[in-house]
């Protein structure tokens, strides 16, 4: 019974990791950009939601109505103004620029919001839960997080394979030069992908902020789980990313049950094992 509880809780935490990872996976899939600032963008989205809530008094989940479009707009602008300039110049410039961006975001948040740790207060839903069976309580917030992860992955997958926008994403990903010959403006396609990634980032940020406190320096710590989930699942495969997040969550939960000191270690070991045995990840791209 104890173990069932631990594994179920691990799966639910995996949903959060998958949300961290999906935006990362999307960007890497479309433009081969490793976004070091991804974790900080998640925290920035949480602060954006915090600001909106302070101004309007909306419920954190309702604040998404404002936060999502703003994040998308920011992502679009960021890609057009900054990140596009770093592409096509080798692997280093995007890494350096997003690394710089990460530092800028952290310090901007510190200057604006101070180092105080914040939290989005979602009211009673935060601690309410239902009991599946004795000893197995499922909280609504973790369940909602997991459901969001599934919905986001399903939505992106649908978009990728059943819409003109998705077709253009796949086209620039497969061959940026030919897609340009076919009349696509790669730069705006990249910007659209970044906007979409930022939407996922905003969802992740708000759910994270309901679940736990956040402060300006939390971003990099979130990034590592995102990376691991992406790599476990296989680069560029969104369902794989979800599976990667769940595997990571369960590995950590099982590790913690043996000894809390092994919680993160267990996750890292599973990650390294998969990297060693199957460097392309469990479900590499190409599985449509």
């Amino acid at each position: 019974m104890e173990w069932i509880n631990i594994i179920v809780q691990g799966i639910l935490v995996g949903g959060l990791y998958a949300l961290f990872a999906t935006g990362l996976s999307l960007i890497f899939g479309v433009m081969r950009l490793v976004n070091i600032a991804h974790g900080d963008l998640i925290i920035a989205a949480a602060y954006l939601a915090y600001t909106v809530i302070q101004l309007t008094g909306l419920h954190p989940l309702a604040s998404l109505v404002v936060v999502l479009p703003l994040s998308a707009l920011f992502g679009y602008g960021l890609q057009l103004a900054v990140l596009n300039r770093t592409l096509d110049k080798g692997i280093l410039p995007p890494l350096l620029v997003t690394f710089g961006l990460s530092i800028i975001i952290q310090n901007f948040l510190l200057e604006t919001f101070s180092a105080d740790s914040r939290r989005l207060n979602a009211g009673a839903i935060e601690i309410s839960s239902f009991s599946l069976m004795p000893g197995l309580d499922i909280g609504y917030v973790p369940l909602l997080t997991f459901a969001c992860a599934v919905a986001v992955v399903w939505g992106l997958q649908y978009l990728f394979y059943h819409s003109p926008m998705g077709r253009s994403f796949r086209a620039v990903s497969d061959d940026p030069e030919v897609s340009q010959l076919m009349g696509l403006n790669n730069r705006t396609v990249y910007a659209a992908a970044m906007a979409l990634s930022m939407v996922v980032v905003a969802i992740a940020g708000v759910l994270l902020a309901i679940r736990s406190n956040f402060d300006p320096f939390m971003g990099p710590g979130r990034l590592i789980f995102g990376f691991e989930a992406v790599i476990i699942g296989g680069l560029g495969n969104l369902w794989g990313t979800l599976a990667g997040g769940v595997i990571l969550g369960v590995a950590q939960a099982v590790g913690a049950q043996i000894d809390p000191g092994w919680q993160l270690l267990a996750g890292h070991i599973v990650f390294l094992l998969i990297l060693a045995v199957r460097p392309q990840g469990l479900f590499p791209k190409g599985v449509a």
Partner: protein
Amino acid sequence: MSRIIMLNRRQVLRGAGALLAAPAILRATRASAQDAVFKIGYVSPNTGPIAGFAEADAFILDGVRKAFAGLTNNGKPVSVEIITKDSQSSSNRAAEVATELIEKDGVNMLLASASPDTANPVADQAELNEIPCITSVTPWQPYFFGRNGDPASGFSWTYHFFWGLEDVIANFLAIWDQSGVAKSIGGLFPNDADGNAWGDAKLGMPTPLSEAGYALVDPGRYQVMNADFSSQIAAFKKAGCKIVTGNMIPPDFATFWSQAGQQGFRPKVVTIGKALLFPSVIESLGERGDGLTSEIWWSPSHPFTSSLTGESAKEIADGYMAATGKQWTQPIGFNHALFEVAADVIRRADDLSDPQSVVDTLAATDMQSIVGPISWKGGPLNPVRNVVRTPLVGGQWQKTGDRFELVITNNSQAPSIPVGGELKLLS
């Protein structure tokens, strides 16, 4: 090339002699410049994960600089320059800025505050470079033993005031005894300097707890920034724990506390070190912040006054709230007291330009400060040579009106500090 060859033995000796003498001459000129100015270097974590500890520094320095204007030494006015540096909450950075303060700014004294990560490296640099140094806001064990201090000899240049683990354990036990709930405790200790010290089987909480008749369930050290406390919660539920304790950072506590709610774990008393110090953290927990208990090192109701400005603890806290619109925090008293001790040394030192004279004066300190009596002369408050223990009490966050107030509910360890309210159980 030819000139070097032309050098003879005498010229070489003369040159070498001048080179050897140079530091003495430079030192002499530096000393004469010091007659006019006494430079204090102050290192605190203005940015980074524990920036909350230095949040009030701008306010404190404002008051301190004004009060320093009238300082005299041997009947002559001293102009004191305070140079502040940010440790960015990192020990590497703290050591770097301390070195900079010593070598570039030529400070006469170093002050450092908040957590072993800032206080220890600054004190180490001061000890190495023979600069008098005062630190605080770090429990004394991590400060003293973390720097490999030997209780027999102590340190020569570095002095510290704060409470220790024995104080925090005594206060936590007093809170729990007072609550009267079943003596079954869940422990949450992270794998960091503080968590390992608190959870240490010999020096930390386990031994005194079992001596006092409490059963401690300690599932083991978790990594900080943990996303999932399900296994700990399951273990606590299984053992029927009524009390939860530990040393956590705020984000970890918030995660634990909402998961505990979700998974139906309802302890009666939750007493956590470090996580529950700042009002902003309690506010961020919403209704569930009400009733959490914590150690209190300083509060506006502490019956002490500043030897520097003559203000009472309440006046300083009120001044902070009026100036910034924010609620008072505990580091205000201690960061202020650092400058009180510095001012006291400046007033009494025989020769401010001589580091040995300054550190001798520092060692002979015997004063009343905003955080209580400070004296390193040896006595019950000095567990080791360089450390003063300041009084510690226990308290609870209680909601009054629309905000949370930290109310002192147990003063058994420091009866001079008045109690402000009754302990309430969580459930």
